């Protein structure tokens, strides 16, 4: 028998099993993380049922069920397993102060999910869960009771949302434009002053323009006020499950749902509508609610600018290293340098970007081209251009390595054939080798984009903000505003998850953002892998 054990041990099977378990552990971790993100992220859009619990002391709790657990250290002889408690999202932050509440299971006398309760998504204070008592126009009651009120509320919400859009349009587009023009005029006047032309007729003209713009501004502000008043005309008296009332202007409600009254199809429809509104809307409530459109937009813009910057550099460097440079010690050193660059921590690039791009280059641009705006910096502060350039530096090794790989996969026969037919080196490069290496370049670009999409640390120093007042692309000349700060999905996760005052309430939003970010990154990576495999296969076939 000991012989058998000895043999078993020396066969190494046990060690192989440990190795296999290590693989399994890695797989389990990847799977677990992806699953966690999926469940939490995708679950966010589902209209969850509302539970109304009646407790033993007669009070009631209404909210979404968010989990159940064993109360720590609650094991008693009677309950060897320990007592349990459930966690509900009770909303009504303005009334209760907290969004979540723990309820001990043994306190619950009755659990019910009534069809007539509704979840009201509000512009402020988060969700309200409860019923409608009455709807009023000014002082006059329009509808009373939950049923009647619910029927009357739906068209009112639609009306209020339309009005809200109009106000938004007025505020952002019309008044925003006027403010933009006023600022432009102010800068123009300042510019003339700096050139010692304070007395010139142009200044007077511009001042007149400013006055005119200000008059316009006042007019629109008056319209805006009128609209806002109109919005507050209708109010709804809501009542939470224990009878506490809350009067709310209808304009405060974004949408109202009765999830317990919805059919499966309706819920699925609502699911996709919720998904779309997160993708397309602006954030609300310090980014913890609403949508993430500006963050998506900012990420895409930054990645595009970065691509424009990184591809020429990376491709040229790779062509030089692979096709032109004499292979030797210098090229070896350069390869090592490129690899080193790939290994340098991203925060170091952030530091470099801040020092070099923002302060050195941006500061110089400001003094040369934007003296009228000083001391407010234009390019001398973080902005989308500097963030993109910083990430371009960060990802240039990826493009170089991928392009080199693409170049090395081009069979030698192609090169030799082209040269033998009389093409110059550049011509064969352009017509033969570049098309063949294109998948490699594309792979590099996609990998670079994937890396840049997920990178946050360098952006924090070079221009990302939690809430950007304007998108970096709009209808004002020159349309692309490279100096503007921007929002980013990755930073959104950091900011909402760690800097917001109510982390618990913000968590679902973070999971959704995470889901979208992870999906984008994984899709990009998989497509890069697919292109690379395709390329390898193609050249393998043609090389034979």
């Amino acid at each position, binding site marked *: 028998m000991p012989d058998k054990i000895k043999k078993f041990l020396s*066969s190494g099977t*046990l060690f*192989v*099993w*440990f*190795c*296999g*378990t*290590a*693989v*399994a*552990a*890695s*797989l*389990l*971790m*990847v799977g677990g*993380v992806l699953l*966690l993100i999926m469940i939490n992220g995708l679950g966010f859009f589902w209209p969850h049922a509302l539970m109304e619990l009646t407790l033993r002391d007669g009070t009631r709790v209404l909210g979404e069920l968010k989990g159940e657990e*064993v109360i*720590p*250290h609650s094991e008693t002889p009677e309950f060897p397993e320990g007592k349990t408690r459930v966690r509900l999202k009770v909303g009504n932050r303005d009334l209760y102060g907290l969004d979540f509440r723990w309820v001990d299971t043994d306190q619950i006398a009755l659990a019910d999910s009534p069809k007539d309760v509704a979840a009201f998504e509000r512009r402020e204070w988060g969700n309200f869960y409860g019923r409608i008592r009455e709807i009023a126009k000014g002082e006059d009651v329009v509808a009373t009771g939950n049923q009647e009120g619910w029927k009357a509320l739906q068209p009112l919400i639609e009306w209020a949302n339309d009005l809200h859009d109009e106000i938004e349009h007025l505020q952002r587009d019309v008044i925003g434009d006027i403010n933009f023009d006023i600022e432009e005029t102010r800068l123009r006047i300042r510019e003339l002053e700096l050139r010692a032309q304070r007395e010139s007729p142009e200044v007077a003209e511009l001042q007149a323009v400013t006055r005119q713009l200000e008059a316009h501004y006042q007019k629109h502000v008056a319209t805006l006020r009128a609209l806002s008043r109109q919005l507050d005309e209708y109010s709804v008296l809501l009542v939470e499950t224990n009878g506490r009332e809350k009067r709310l202007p209808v304009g405060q409600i974004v949408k109202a749902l009765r999830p317990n009254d919805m059919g499966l199809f309706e819920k699925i429809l609502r699911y996709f509508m919720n998904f779309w509104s997160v993708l397309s809307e602006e954030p609300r409530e310090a980014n913890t609610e609403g949508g993430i459109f500006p963050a998506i937009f900012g990420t895409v813009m930054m990645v595009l600018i970065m691509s424009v910057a990184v591809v*020429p*550099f*990376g491709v*040229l*460097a790779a062509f*030089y290293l692979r096709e032109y*440079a004499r292979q030797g010690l210098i090229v070896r050193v350069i390869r*090592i*340098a*490129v*690899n080193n660059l790939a*290994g*340098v*921590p*991203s*925060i*170091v690039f952030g*530091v*470099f970007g801040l*020092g070099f791009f923002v302060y050195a280059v941006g500061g110089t641009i400001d003094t040369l081209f934007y003296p009228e705006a000083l001391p407010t910096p234009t390019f001398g502060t973080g902005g989308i251009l500097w963030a993109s350039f910083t990430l371009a*530096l960060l990802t*240039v090794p990826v493009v170089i390595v991928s392009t080199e790989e693409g170049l090395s996969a081009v069979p030698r026969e192609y090169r030799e054939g082209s040269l033998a037919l009389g093409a*110059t080196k*550049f011509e064969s490069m*352009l017509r033969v080798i570049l098309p063949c290496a294109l998948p490699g370049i594309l792979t590099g670009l996609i990998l670079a984009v994937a890396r840049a999409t997920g990178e*946050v*640390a360098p952006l924090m*120093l070079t221009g990302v903000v939690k809430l950007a007042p304007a998108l970096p692309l709009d209808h004002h000349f020159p349309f692309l505003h490279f100096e503007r700060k921007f929002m980013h999905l*990755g930073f959104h996760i*950091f900011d909402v*998850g*760690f800097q917001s005052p109510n982390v618990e309430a913000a*968590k679902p939003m*973070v999971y959704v953002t*995470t889901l979208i*970010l*992870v999906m984008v*990154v994984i899709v990009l990576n998989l497509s890069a892998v697919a292109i690379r495999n395709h390329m390898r296969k193609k050249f393998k076939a043609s090389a034979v």
Partner: protein
Amino acid sequence: MNQANSTAHPVEGTPPSSSVLSKSRLRALRRWTDHGARGVITLGGWATIFSIFGIFAYLFIEVAPLFYPASWSQKTTVEIDTSDEARQNPRNVAVGINEYMEVGYVLGGRGMAFYTFPTGSPIHLESMPDFEEGDVTALARSPGKDDVYGLGTRVGRVIPLYVTFRVTFEDGVRTTEPVVTAGEPFEAVPTGDPIARLAYRETDSGPIAAALTGSGRLFLTKMQESEAEGLFALEKESELLRTEIIDEGVEALSVLLLDDLGETLLGGTTDGRLLYWDIEDVQNPRLMGMYSAGTSITALSYLIGDRSIVVGTEKGTVSVWMSVINPDVGGDPRLQKIRDLASHDGAVTAVSPSLRDKGFLTADASGSVAVHHSTSSQTLIRIPGNGTAILAAMFAPKTDGALVLDGSGRLITYDIENEHPESTFSSLFLPVLYEGYEELLHIWQSTGGSDAFEPKFGLWPIMFGTLKGTIYAMLLATPLAVLGAIYTAMFMHPNIRAVVKPVVEIMEALPTVVLGFLAGLWFAPLLEKIFPAVVAMFLLIPLAVVVVCVGWQLLPSRLKGTSGNVTELAVFLLVLAGTVWLCLQLNHQIESWLFNSNYKGWLQATFGLAYDQRNALVIAFAMGMAVIPTIFSISEDSLSNVPPHLIAGSLALGATPWQTLTKLVIISASPGLFSALMIGLGRVVGETMIVLMATGNTPVMDMNLFNGFRTLSANIAVEMPEAPHGGTLYRLLFLAGLLLFVFTSIVNTLAEIVRQRLRARYSQF
């Protein structure tokens, strides 16, 4: 380079029109295009490569000023008329200069004169308060942002005097106009004797003065101001509190100093003693201690913040003292000399503290001037003298210059270049005795509430945190990744490998901000709950693997299939998931079995370790996860690149797969494994977001697995947005970046060289 690129394009577009060109011209054109393209590509290649080295150079350029020596230059010399009296009684003279170093003044017993700098032309003031010219026998500066003086007179009164600079802008041109006002005089010596030595300080509760008469009597006077509610408005009431201090040594006093709260009086004596009174209760001063400073004390000054005291002596020694509370002796504070700075050749005649940092300027009787910095214990500048004693000196408010008056009536301004006095190699990397601490410590605390805060730039705690995070993460990641790679490369069926490898590599693409978020907000609170289960997992999983492995051998091979197939992987997954599930289910039981039902208390009691929610263990998991795919992927590559004919040969010679693995494959691939670990290490060292989000970011120094730390990278992310451009903190954060850059470069270069060697070796087969 983009420009160069675009010039190449039009040329490339010419071939269609080539029919017009003669053949030779076409050939020439093609040749030129080829040369041009070569030039452009070479240029582009070099530009990219240059920029890589440029990053290093730029980081270095930003860091270098930290270690530049300070420099000085003499700017203006004005000959003024000083009376003999001033020369005989230098305590009766003061100089001052405004923050732009444009207007300076000399204040003496006979009056006051203003000068414009750098021209040196005198300014005539319209109105000057009457401060009993000629009767001033002693004067004292009340240190602080404003120029406030107490003038002690021949009849024992103290006149507060305020010098302010009114700045007006017209057409963007700044004009500075000095304004002098005098406050309400009060009696400081009840006997009406002349004041010989004076300390004066304006505190929040009113001015306070310590006056020594020529006959050696010391009086402490405070104008206690309080606001009382009057009939119509708040009325200021003031009450004069006075005591005579009669302690041993008073008659020998040569200098006096009051702190900004009016709670401490310090005196230096001609026999080299430093006297320390607690005067919180003005009417009942207590002598707290008497300390020997060697020889006669000639100058005393607080540094900004009023915690460190600079003591200058007749022999020219300059030392910094601090009040510390000795825990052994009891609650009373006592003075202690904490550092000596470079000595002067003559007696120290003036000390002027900086208004922005813990630096100060000293001047001596031989005419030389020095600039020191307390925290970094260094003397930055020594301006040699010409033998004429300096009567008064002032460190410019922005510490960029000095104004000095010497005994021959020369008023001299200096420009001082002294950007980063806080940073020396030893103040960054060696322990320092900071204000308010008892011992030499490594502390990183870059910003504080007020200007008087002493920045603590000890980099070691952050470097330590970086090492701590790296070590724990690598301890977790290395075995998982390397063992996993061995299995995947050697034992796994190629078809499964084609799926498994990309799946693990997806993890590499996972943004670290996502891992950081999950680690901080999901895993950290979860781990706090299931800690006993996690401990049990580390013990039970290996056990379970052993048990199942042995059991598996007993199964008929018909069921098992070939080694490395899907069934085997499924068994691994099942064993693992099953054990994890079991541990989670038994969490409470495990806690009561192993940890006495309260693991936090148990940790505290058994090892003295505190458990924070966001701790190094969380980081180990999160960073481990970030780095496993990197190490896994490179290790797997190097293992599967071992030439198959070597393996086949080994197996053919009768070696078991296990022997082939240990005796051949691992050894052949070890350089590859090494470079995998190095690259993984480089990644962990610089990881930012995970550490930022999942630790408390407190720069503490211990290896406790259950509390947080702060790393170089997280430190940059936390502090860089607040660091003023060009300041010491800004450059120190660049230094942190440079350290990371250099470290990862070394590690990566090592890895790359090893890898290139390996590649060259296998290309021979």
